[in-house]
């Protein structure tokens, strides 16, 4: 394990840490500590994906340490618990009818790239993301923001491959629906 190899994983680790810690400086520290710890052990791995899984494992401990030290009573919740009473299972029934046709068909979005340049859009994006079920949002963020592969998400969240697929799909359906209603439909007139 050399420094260059570790640095390649840095970006993904940092995004992962940001997802949990919401503070850039704290996240940087946690990643730094992770990389140091990794360098010290110097284990060798056959594949790149094994390295990443291992690094994320260390990082998770660092993040847990942070919460333990900073806020003794802070509850991380149980990240492995699956939604038993899944509210967004109903989402699909609102979007598709019994025959699998769109009910509220996707509309044409007016100049979506322009939205990315607007500060206000990101507020709506975050709002929509928070509106998803926690598990679905997490799967989506790990995939699209952190950049993990589906396999890694299954491991991270301790869910089956099919659950992972469903979470990602529902997160996308929900996020798309929300952005359409909260941003693209309302903004079109302006």
């Amino acid at each position, binding site marked *: 394990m050399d420094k260059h190899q570790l640095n390649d994983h840095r970006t993904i680790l940092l995004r992962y840490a940001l997802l949990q810690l919401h503070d850039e400086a704290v996240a940087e520290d946690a990643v730094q500590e992770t990389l140091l710890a990794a360098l010290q052990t110097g284990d060798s791995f056959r594949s790149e994906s094994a390295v990443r899984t291992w690094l994320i494992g260390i990082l998770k401990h660092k993040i847990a340490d942070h919460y333990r030290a900073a806020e003794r009573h802070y509850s991380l919740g149980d990240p492995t618990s699956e939604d038993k009473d899944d509210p967004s299972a109903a989402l699909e029934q609102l979007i*598709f009818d019994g025959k699998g046709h769109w009910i509220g068909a996707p509309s044409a979005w007016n100049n979506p790239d322009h939205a990315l340049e607007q500060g206000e859009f*990101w507020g709506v994006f975050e709002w929509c993301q928070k509106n998803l079920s926690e598990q679905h949002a997490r799967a*989506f963020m790990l995939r*699209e923001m952190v950049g993990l592969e589906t396999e890694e998400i299954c491991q991270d969240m301790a869910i089956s491959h099919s659950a992972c697929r469903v979470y*990602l799909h529902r997160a*996308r359906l929900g996020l798309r629906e929300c952005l359409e209603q909260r941003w693209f439909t309302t903004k079109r007139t302006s």
Partner: protein
Amino acid sequence: MPGTTLVYYQENIMKTCKDISELLSESMDRPLTWRERWTVRVHLLMCRHCSRFQNHLNFLHKAAERYYPNKR
């Protein structure tokens, strides 16, 4: 082969928008098989709703990628 054509024809007409939306979502996470790609492609030729959905998925991906730099 006429047989193969029939198989694809049947598969395509049996896929609903719901099925196609799932495949489109999965295509963001893994390469679709040759057959899946065909199914999606034929469906998209006929269905502008699912075509839009595909555009929107790409947009979500782009937005998510930009999310962190935007926080800085």
